[in-house]
């Protein structure tokens, strides 16, 4: 993470890394829109079962969703702590965010395994293809986020992350909240509106 850009003159008064990140998020929106659109276009077109309502476990995934929402809250607390220089709580909240992210990923692993046992694999039908690729892509994003959070946490433990790097934490937060929002959309579209 380049630290120099922050000190430079910028024409828009917005840090370059943050701006690049917003552009990245814009780009990611198109990625997930394409995936979600495909899911919707192919909904109900599978020629063999199982179909979503036979497979999806809404109570279980609601808990995962709540978990991910809470991780966003942890992220907010982490950023606030780092910004006010409270690195003790900064470390705790960062770790908590990463932990909740890991819990979500664990939930996804359990969910996927259960679906495979119930007879839904990537190859079974169109629901399987679109479901696994969409939620899998999201899971990959969460994984990257967890790695990133853990990296920051380790840096913080080493004393290399302080209020001077608040912007880095802020950008991490942007990413994390984005991934969270995408999940809300996926949860709504895939699980709630069947």
């Amino acid at each position, binding site marked *: 993470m380049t630290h120099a*850009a922050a000190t430079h003159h910028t*024409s828009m008064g917005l840090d370059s890394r943050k*701006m690049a990140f917003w552009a990245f998020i814009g780009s990611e929106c198109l990625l997930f829109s*394409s*995936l979600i659109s495909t899911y919707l276009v192919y909904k109900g077109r599978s020629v063999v079962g199982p179909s979503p309502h036979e497979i999806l476990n809404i109570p279980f995934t609601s808990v995962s969703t709540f978990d991910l929402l809470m991780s966003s809250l942890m992220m907010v607390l982490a950023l606030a702590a780092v910004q006010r220089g409270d690195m003790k709580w900064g470390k705790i909240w960062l770790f908590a965010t990463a932990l909740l992210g890991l819990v979500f990923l664990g939930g996804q692993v359990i969910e996927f395994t259960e679906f495979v046992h119930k007879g839904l694999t*990537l190859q079974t039908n169109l629901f399987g*293809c679109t479901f696994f690729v969409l939620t899998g*892509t999201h899971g990959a994003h969460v994984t990257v986020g967890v790695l990133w959070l853990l990296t920051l946490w380790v840096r913080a433990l080493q004393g290399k992350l302080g209020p001077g790097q608040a912007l880095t934490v802020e950008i991490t937060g942007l990413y994390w909240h984005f991934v969270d929002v995408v999940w809300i959309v996926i949860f709504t579209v895939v699980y709630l509106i069947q």
Partner: protein
Amino acid sequence: MKRWITTTDHKRIGLLYFWTAFCFFLVGGLEALLIRLQLAQPNGHLVSAETYNQLFTMHGTTMVFLALMPLSASFFNYIVPLQIGARDVAFPRLNAFSYWVFLLGGLLLNASWLVGPLFHAPHWNVAPNGGWFGYANLTERQFSPGPNIDFWLLGLQILGISSLAAGFNFIVTILNMRAPGMKMLRVPAFSWMTLVTQFLVITAFPVITVGLVFLMFDRFFGTHFYVATAGATPLLWQHLFWLFGHPEVYILILPAMGIVSEVLPTFARKPLFGYTVVVFSGVLIGFMGWGVWSHHMFAVGLGPIADSVFAGTTMLIAVPTGVKIFNWIATLWGGDIRGSTALHFAVGFIAMFIIGGLSGVTHASPPADLQQTDTYYVVAHIHYVLFGGTVLGLFAGIYYWWPKMTGRLLGESLGKWHFWLTFVGMNLAFFPMHLIGLLGMPRRIYTYTPELGVSALNLVSTVGAFLIAVAILVFLVNVLRTRTHGRPAPNDPWGGATLEWSIPSPPPVYNFSVIPTVASRLPRWKTERHEPMRDPPAVPPAPIHVPPGSWWPLIAALGLPVLALAPLTHTLWLAFLGAAILLVGIYRWAFEPFEA
């Protein structure tokens, strides 16, 4: 050598982009010549059907992704920071990463010409053979079992990463790194068009990435995204591809339009007529480019309502395009036009782009398009747009900025030969294709019968293609002569209005000894309200810190082709190795002390 490999200097990266892309341009050109030789006569048998299909697939893929886009990128890199008065791009190492990823992706794609035996193929060439548009379900494993399509879909995903990274970088650079006083409506037209292009890149490439990922899953993991018998439709690919593909057309043409908007004012000694209109029509074209994709699919049978809507949006896009052409002509009107080679190419662009635009209107009309689509008429159209448009525009840029980029002026008389040979050659090559198409020859066929009645026209077209090749040779001779005999370029050989002409040619590594403060849209020209700016001093008044190079962009980039080799060769450990290289590269890069 090390200084080039580890460089993060936008100017060096620009030159790397230029030479790499130019080599790919020659490869793509060679493929075109082989295609034209095969079609010079009916029942041609220079190459087999399979090789021919690989040739046209790779010609299209190479020209779009490995030649024209990166040639534009070489100007984004070299010129944009200079035009906006910056020391470098916003993220120099990300910029190096983009370049290396592009190079490696291009090499991976082209390796497919030579590695047949590794895949137990009976011949050397296992190059992609599904067309540059790779329509599913022909590209499914069932119908294309070899590694050909795998090379294509993996190569394109890698190239997409390069384009996306460059997209974020240049958006931030142009928005955020402008010199003091350079408001958005003082940004030179070329940099503006670059900005629009990059917005198209970062929005269009994710869509094709998704399409390619689906294809990859279908081919490697047995999913059914494009398999009709599973309830899916291969049309999903066409929608995703053209949602990307049409913005891609503007990704290819807008930079050339930007170049022309720089060259014309300089050589007519008149400001760009209707600067604001030209800029906003570029933005409008960018927006509208998203609403027209189905005009590539009129023969698909989308129904009369969809056809009418897309015909309407497509015709509408002709309006801002026409506006640009009228403004360019108005720029020349009343000027003092000096006929430099750059101006020849820029005017050639306008003249040819008009033809391409008008034939475009003829197939914006779905019923007419039903006769034209997938025939040589459309081949004529895209070559008037992408060769007559983009390539001529890029050559205008090459002659215009060559002195800035290399310190020497390209020869003008060889330049004129280059232009006229190109101009005559392209019209001989591509004009007959209109007739060939209307007389019923489909595109992408490796052979045709003499009964079709298009043999003589095809021969003319082949002659034209070789004339273009001669023109390219003349250009190469010009380049070589210029290295030794070229006139050394002063700061400003043309009397240009923009900031890149205020500094030495080639510029020092820090570009501007003092970052200029900009007070007008034409900072180096005298206008009604402004005196010309004073050029920065030759020697910087204070030492300027120049960031060191970095290995990590290259190393991170190397992870991607290794990752791609995993599915290609069905070797799992390569996936872990590739991911590890990528991860290490990114980590080391992130924690490297680096001042930009």
